[in-house]
Structure formats: structure tokens, C-alpha cells
């Protein structure tokens, strides 16, 4: 009984912080999602709207397009980051000259705030000023993210990959370092090649770490705002208007907090469902191969 009380006492600060900083805002957003709330209205009060915000949402083609765009962006960035991160983590497991320097430099983008990353990439891509349009023009490419939607989308993907691949690399590197050496030595003695070792030993043993990195990146990529906001502002047109930016554009200039909350809740719902489906698929596939 006494140890139970001690345990709850030790957990209390964490539970309090989680409750006030995590659960309370979450339930408040869910609550506001059922109201019409415009601070510039006559009373400025919350007016009960029932499911109207969600009803409006399922017919909102702009929101649905932003959601689709966000999912495509997430698929591109997370796939590239996982593949590159794995390759770099494998590289950093080997000994080579300048390894420590490379590891430190490679991790530098992680230390930069997203808003600064967006601003830096903006400077690099301004036509007539940035180095990217300058060098690309020299090889015959007219690069202008303010004009071409495809280029703007690709640049936001590149920027996210540049910013977050080191996170995946370091996470996977930590996992690789913690793996036992014996199975790998045994596999080499048995004549397994590098691909077989990766496919049958490294990836299965690293699965929990890979899943952690994957889910963190999916959640982060789906709700991206600041970097893209600084780089393209969601444009040209709506080419890079991902859900986070769409929510921002609806909530702040129009002060439509109820509808904005409904959009945020729906984005959270899609994120959770996507991660859960992925986890279930991976777990099932793993069971079938075992």
C-alpha cells in the first residue's frame, strides 16, 4: 500500500504536466470543434453548432485537397528520410577518415529552428539572389518556386528531407550501435552477403527503432507549417498549402476557431489512423514471415 502511494506521488508531477499541457488543450479543441466561435461576432461567445463544423468539413474541397496534398508530401518526405537515414546510419557504423567531423556536420540541420530553416531556404531560392536558381539556370533549368507549382512542392520536400534526415540517421544509428555483434559475425561466417544480413538480421532486429522514427516523422510531416510558411507561404496558388497552413489561414485571419478546431481534430484523427494502420500492417507482415 505504501509503495503504491510512493509510486503515485512520484508520478504526480508528470501526470499534472501531461494533464495541463496535453490532455486539457486536446479536450478543449474537441469541445470548441462543436461550436461556432468568432471573436469579432456581436457577442464573441461560443454558439452551439453540433456536428455542423464537421458537416461543413466533409464538403470542403479546399480542406480535402490540402489533406491529400499533405499525405502526398508525407509519403515523399518520410520515404526519402527513412531510406537516406538508414543508408547514412549504415555508413556511420563503419570506420573512415573524418567520421566524427561528418557526423557532427550532418547533425547540424537538427539544431536549426524550423522557421530559420524556411527563411534560409527562401534566401537560397529567390530568383536573382539565391544560389539555387543561379546554378540551375546555368544548366538550363528555369527554377522559380514562386511560379512553378511542381518545383515549389519538390523544394518543400527537399527542405524537409535536409532538415530531418539527420534525426532518422541518429535514431537508427543509436539502434544499430545497441545491436549484439554475435548474430552478424555468425551470419558472415555462414557466408551471408550484405543484402541478406540487412534483410534478415538488421531490419528485423531494428524494427522497434525504425517504427519509432517512422511514426515520429509521419506525425511531424503531416502537421508541417512553419518551414513551408516561410519558404512558399503555401503557394504558388495552393501547390504547397498543406493542412497545417490551411488551418492557419482559416483560423487566424478569419478567426473561425470552431471550424479550425474541427479541422485540427480531423487531422489528428487521420494521423492516428494512418500510424495505426501502418503499425498493424507491419506487425501482421512480421508475424507472417515468422
Amino acid at each position, binding site marked *: 500500500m505504501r509503495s503504491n502511494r510512493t509510486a503515485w506521488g512520484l508520478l504526480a508531477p508528470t501526470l499534472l504536466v501531461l494533464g495541463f499541457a496535453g490532455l486539457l488543450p486536446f479536450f478543449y479543441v474537441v469541445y470548441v470543434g462543436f461550436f461556432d466561435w468568432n471573436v469579432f461576432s456581436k457577442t464573441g461567445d461560443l454558439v452551439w453548432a453540433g*456536428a455542423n463544423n464537421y458537416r461543413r468539413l*466533409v464538403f470542403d474541397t479546399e480542406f480535402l485537397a490540402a489533406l491529400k496534398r499533405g499525405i502526398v508530401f508525407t509519403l515523399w518526405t518520410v520515404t526519402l528520410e527513412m531510406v537516406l537515414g538508414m543508408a547514412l546510419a549504415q555508413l556511420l557504423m563503419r570506420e573512415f577518415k573524418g567520421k566524427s567531423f561528418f557526423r557532427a556536420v550532418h547533425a547540424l540541420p537538427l539544431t536549426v529552428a524550423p522557421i530559420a530553416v524556411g527563411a534560409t531556404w527562401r534566401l537560397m531560392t529567390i530568383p536573382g539572389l539565391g544560389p539555387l536558381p543561379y546554378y540551375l539556370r546555368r544548366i538550363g533549368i528555369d527554377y522559380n518556386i514562386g511560379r512553378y507549382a511542381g518545383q515549389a512542392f519538390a523544394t518543400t520536400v527537399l527542405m524537409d528531407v535536409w532538415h530531418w534526415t539527420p534525426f532518422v540517421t541518429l535514431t537508427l544509428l543509436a539502434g544499430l550501435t545497441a545491436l549484439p555483434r554475435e548474430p552478424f559475425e555468425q551470419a558472415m561466417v555462414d557466408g551471408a552477403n550484405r543484402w541478406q544480413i540487412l534483410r534478415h538480421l538488421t531490419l528485423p532486429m531494428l524494427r522497434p527503432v525504425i517504427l519509432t522514427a517512422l511514426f515520429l516523422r509521419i506525425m511531424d510531416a503531416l502537421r508541417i507549417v512553419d518551414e513551408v510558411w516561410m519558404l512558399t507561404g503555401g503557394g504558388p496558388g495552393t501547390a504547397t498549402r498543406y493542412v497545417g497552413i490551411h488551418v492557419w489561414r482559416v483560423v487566424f485571419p478569419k478567426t473561425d476557431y470552431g471550424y479550425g478546431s474541427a479541422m485540427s481534430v480531423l487531422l489528428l484523427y487521420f494521423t492516428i489512423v494512418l500510424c495505426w494502420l501502418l503499425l498493424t500492417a507491419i506487425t501482421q507482415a512480421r508475424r507472417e514471415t515468422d
Partner: protein
Amino acid sequence: MTRTQKPPRRGFLPMETNLFDRIFIGVVLFVAIHLLWMRFVEQYIPLTVATILSVVLMYVIAKWG
């Protein structure tokens, strides 16, 4: 005093689940049914029907899923 968690079991769902998993699946389906209903069916049948169906489905999944 330690309460033991019920072990995962296999019902009609194509995977082993514990009670939390089944409630989670129920809530996910509850929301999905309501959203799809509002988009495609509500002009013919009111949303209350979706709520009743979803609650029944949640119970069935939690009990036998």
C-alpha cells in the same frame, strides 16, 4: 493489489486484440461512419441512425471482436 491485464484474444477481427485495441477500433469506426454518413447518406437518412449503428458496432467489436 496489482491488477493483471487480460491477455489478447482472437475474435472475429483478423488480429489478436485486447480490450483497449477493440475500444480504439470502435472509436475509429465511430468517427469514420459519421464522416462518411454526413458526406454521402445524410441527405436521405438522418445522422442519428449513424450514431445508433456506430454505438451498436462499438459494442459488438468490444464484446466479440
